[in-house]
């Protein structure tokens, strides 16, 4: 286990990519920014069926996107699926916030269509998104929403919302969202503010890079995950 500041470099398919504590993967040579699972409008669609969930999480997610693109100035943003959460997610409030960012960002935005996007219906207005099916290619990377179970790498995907449990003092465990590096590919953490995590089990040779606040924490199955001493 080791800590690192905001970013960790890894080599995938001969390319250096940067896993970042702000929940994205950046490919500096081509200046492409990858994110996954924003689930915008989740609150709206839940409120619409009478579940009292406070508003604000989608706007906050888009705002983080805005500061990321301002900081990194990428030539393209690729969203690895589940940009929208459900039918009814593109509420006026969410679309307005989205357009505010989109008009300020001049480069391309590509969406690899995910299972939630497919269920949230056709997009009525032009939100400045280039929609693509899974299997799209950028340099050596094949892009998916659902991580492929086999096949050649390197690939990038989302969908899982991977998380690892880190056990700390007083036997209190903490679930941290993470990057999951396995099978010559990488599953990205969910970028959205209103998303959960699913605990993954690391196999030998795999690595999880967990997001611990503004730092990253690399975990390999060789270290005893359940005895990690973690202190914030």
């Amino acid at each position, binding site marked *: 286990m080791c800590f690192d500041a905001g970013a960790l470099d890894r080599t995938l398919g001969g390319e250096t990519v940067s896993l970042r504590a702000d929940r994205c993967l950046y490919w500096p040579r081509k200046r492409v920014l990858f994110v996954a699972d924003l689930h915008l409008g*989740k*609150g*709206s*669609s*839940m*409120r*619409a*069926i*009478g*579940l*009292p*969930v*406070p*508003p*604000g*999480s989608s706007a*906050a997610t888009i705002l983080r996107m805005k500061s990321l693109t301002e900081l990194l100035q990428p030539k393209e943003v690729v969203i690895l699926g589940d940009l929208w*959460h*459900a*039918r*009814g997610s593109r*509420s006026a*409030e969410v679309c307005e916030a989205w357009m505010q960012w989109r008009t300020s960002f001049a480069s391309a935005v590509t969406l690899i269509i995910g299972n*939630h996007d497919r*269920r949230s219906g056709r997009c009525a207005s032009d939100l400045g998104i280039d929609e693509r099916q899974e299997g799209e290619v950028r340099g050596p990377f094949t892009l998916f929403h659902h991580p492929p179970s086999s096949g050649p790498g390197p690939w990038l995907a989302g969908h899982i919302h991977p998380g690892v449990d880190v056990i700390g*003092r*007083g*036997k*209190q465990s903490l679930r941290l969202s993470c990057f999951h590096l396995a099978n010559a590919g990488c599953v990205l953490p969910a970028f959205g*503010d*209103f*998303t*959960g995590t699913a605990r993954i089990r690391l196999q030998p040779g795999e690595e999880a890079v967990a997001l611990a606040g503004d730092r990253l924490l690399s975990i390999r199955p060789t270290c005893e995950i359940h005895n990690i001493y973690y202190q914030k």
Partner: protein
Amino acid sequence: MDAREEWFAQQGWQPFAFQHQVWQAYAEGKSGLIHSATGTGKTLAAWLGPAFEHSDEVAQDPEGLRVLWITPLRALASDTEKSLRKPIDEMGLAWRIERRTGDTSSSQRARQKRSMPSLLVTTPESLTLMLAQPDGADRLSRLRAVVVDEWHELMGSKRGVQTELALARLRRMAPGLRTWGVSATLGNLPEAARTLVGPGHPHEVIEGYREKEIVIDTILPERMDRFPWAGHFGTQMLGPVIRAIEESGSTLLFTNTRAMAEAWYQQILAKRPEWAETVGLHHGSLDRQERDLVEAGIKSGTLRAVVCTSSLDLGVDFSPVERVIQLGSPKGVARLLQRAGRSGHRPGQVSRVTCVPTHALELVDMSSARDAAEAGQIERRPGIKNALDVLAQHLVTVAAGPGFRRDELLAEVRQSAAYETLSDAQWEWCLDFVVRGGDSLRAYPEYQRVVERDGVYRVESEDLAHRHRMTIGTIVSDAAMTVRQMNGAVLGTVEESFLSRLRPGDTFIFAGKALQFIRIRDMTAWVKRATKPHGNIPRWAGGRLPLSSELSRAIRLSLERARFGELPTPEMQALASVLEVQAKWSCIPASDEFLVEDVEDREGFHLFFYPFEGRLVHEGLAALFAYRISRTTPVTFTMACNDYGFELLSAQPVSIDDVRVHNLASPENLAEDILASLNSVEMARRQFREVARIAGLVFEGYPGMGKSAKQLQASASLLFDVFVKYDPGNLLLEQAQREVLERQLEQSRMQEVLERLNRSMVVITRPPRPTPMSFPILVDHLRETLTSESLTERIARMTEEFESILN
């Protein structure tokens, strides 16, 4: 002689004085509470009043519900219905008796909608559901009486609060309604009665038949020097328990946890394989059908013995049960008496409960429980106040039913003891919450659950009303998975957290069977019978009961007497050699002393503190003391605790003297220090699961719902984070934190405990090695880190070491 007395005479009985008393009070139009041990004719006392008085009215006009009978368990409804029907049929009274629970078919419910029976047996949830129907009020307007059975089970829980709200509503729909409750004996009967009938309503508290004799005895280990100071499942007493089963007729064996029930069942059958057909297993995680079979076996007397948990604490007639055995500490006086009452379930018969210690110090619990029972020191069950999650659910329930006007409903809600002190601000917040989502300043966009039009609040969308009716209730189930055999048979449910740790091929013990885990698919764990007979036993959350305050106090007194050489009971005499070691190596504390043991060994530096206040309080105190020590000395502790005390273990020595202990036990700044000392956010996050579910934040879905519906689900812990970030002023967050302090940490009890400890004389001893009192805590601490098999070995080895020192 009226028809009731004639009927009694036909049975060869005579009504008890208290039954006459209840009938008389009922005839005078009064409400009240009847309390006594089980099996003493309380049901007939409560039922024959209304049955007799309103039978002419029912005969003239059979339409309309006259009496509601509320039972806490739907599994009891059918037996209750039978026992209410019997005297009526035999007396030839005109009542039409039916039941309505979650198990009632929709055709039956539709029939009841057209024509209500004159007496309905139902559960709090089904009653609330009736209130959530638009025409519910019409069907309840002719109600004369409500009887709440086993009120002690509901009182002090959120189901009790739900029942209080329903009762307040019924009283307004049917003026002059008489409320009666049937309860086991509680330490706060006046409060229980007031909560039941509503504050300000005159009522009577009537004590039931009392002469029923209860014998509490203990099977003593044959050789105390070979008896462990701490055990795992404590099956060392297997031999004597099997002999006890052989000696008696039908026997119930109560354990404190489901895991312990599984272990004992397994051990008994291993020793007596020929009992496979005549010994049963019963606990709350087993499939309903299996439990029904076992219950039927008890009633018919075909089962010789049943190993069970509190799942059999309630229930109607188990008259063939001759003997009750309590395995392990009873943990509370009322619980022990309730369990004892399961045997000799007839007035005039002797109830007998035999306790079986699983390790040495439990003998003190048993002796003390008898002392407390004899002195009448029974646990209290305080009611819950101002639970906003239950209120929010109730507002939507009424809005989905006939609708409400705000001032009328506020007045009605304040008629219940649970909300008599509800502030205007809390009420406003709750109303805003169901109407707008956030408070008045922050309405949630797109959100509309309850809509106000012309001063009337209603749920307008039939879809929302339907979904709300499906989620009514305050029972929050654990994340459990169905366990199913490959041949299709459902065995019951086991917590997901246990199953997710299993690998295919692993074996575990469940439902009395050794099972091999195959895979998890569709929220079901598929298993087959294993060839090898052993494996891990699942542990269910919430399985560990803390010691009650009353029993704790009795234990401190027993120890004080032992310190001065007084061993008045067989249990305490059996313990003499162990107590002698405790006195020699350390000290047996008097009730005004606070014992601290300071022990150093290979593991590190142990501090053992003994407040004798039960596990929950000790968990809080351990965290509090550790926090207060670390404020002046930077040190990291590992904590462990049991019902007698707690341990702080550190890698470096911590100097301790009586001044310091007094400071640690200071009652000042308690709330602040608790919040700082524990990961209170994490605990509140867990508690939020219940609050969010009840307040309708979590959509749990329903069988067969499609994928697009699943997308609308979010876990409570995720919602907790969203609320903390985007609506931190939400009162439901505050409620979750309050429930952590009050219910999980028992803050008010901690305050009392600290005040007592602060007045006590501190006694610090430095024993050469762990003492009989600290040993069980050490084992508990090992339990967290070792698997069950290596734990058993480790305990055996440690026990041997101690024996060699003693001999």
